[in-house]
């Protein structure tokens, strides 16, 4: 690695198949480029928990990174529960509820935060704030301003 180049926290997206692949593809399409230091793992319905755990461990081993953020799709789901077995505070952190806004915010946040301990809560916050009740926002806007225009969304 060239001198002075920033080391990004590595990211592993683990989900029920085919969400990891689909989320990654959608993010690549929007951003117009691939992610660096990023891996995705789709857990197939046909595999056993033992198979899935082995696959997860193999993937983490291949990543060979000092700090890893594991993003999972669903708190309490198998991908998340397996990811939790790898939790190692300060080295491997786990955040559930992966969504497209989190994927789009990923690189900016990795530039901003050098440690996975800081990155994990920051990306969780981004994901939460990007969930918007658009109809409710529109109603409030009409009530306040009395117009039928589509407002800027304030999540």
């Amino acid at each position, binding site marked *: 690695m060239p001198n002075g180049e920033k080391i990004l926290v590595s990211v592993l997206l683990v989900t029920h198949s085919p969400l990891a692949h689909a989320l990654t593809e959608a993010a690549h399409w929007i951003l117009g480029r691939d992610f660096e230091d990023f891996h995705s793992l789709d857990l197939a319905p046909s595999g056993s928990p033992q198979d899935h755990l082995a696959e997860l461990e193999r993937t983490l081993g291949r990543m060979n990174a000092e700090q890893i953020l594991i993003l999972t799709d669903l708190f309490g789901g198998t991908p998340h529960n397996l990811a939790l077995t790898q939790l190692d505070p300060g080295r491997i952190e786990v955040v559930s509820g992966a969504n497209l806004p989190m994927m789009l915010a990923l690189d*900016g946040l990795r530039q901003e935060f050098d440690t996975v301990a800081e990155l994990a809560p920051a990306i969780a916050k981004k994901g939460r704030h990007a969930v918007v009740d658009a109809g409710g926002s529109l109603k409030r806007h009409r009530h306040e301003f009395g117009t039928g225009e589509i407002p800027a969304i304030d999540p």
Partner: protein
Amino acid sequence: MKIAKEFTLINQLGLHARAAARLVSLLSQAEGDVWVRYGDREVNGKSILSLLTLSAPKSTTIEIEVEGESSQEILASVAELVEDRFGEES
């Protein structure tokens, strides 16, 4: 140096996700802060999620303020990008 310039969005989809991503990649080159304004809202121009909250459609005008040595060059590149309809329409 801090410079602000207005741009009217002429592409069909306005400031949607892919257009916002291309805009962010240009604005992120600024050494200082970048602000994008639409109506009464002002957001960080280096954040795609913030830009998307503006929901700026076709034919609306946004103002971009760039701080830093290369602000002039960056705004010139933004002008080309907007004029090129974010590379989306032939």
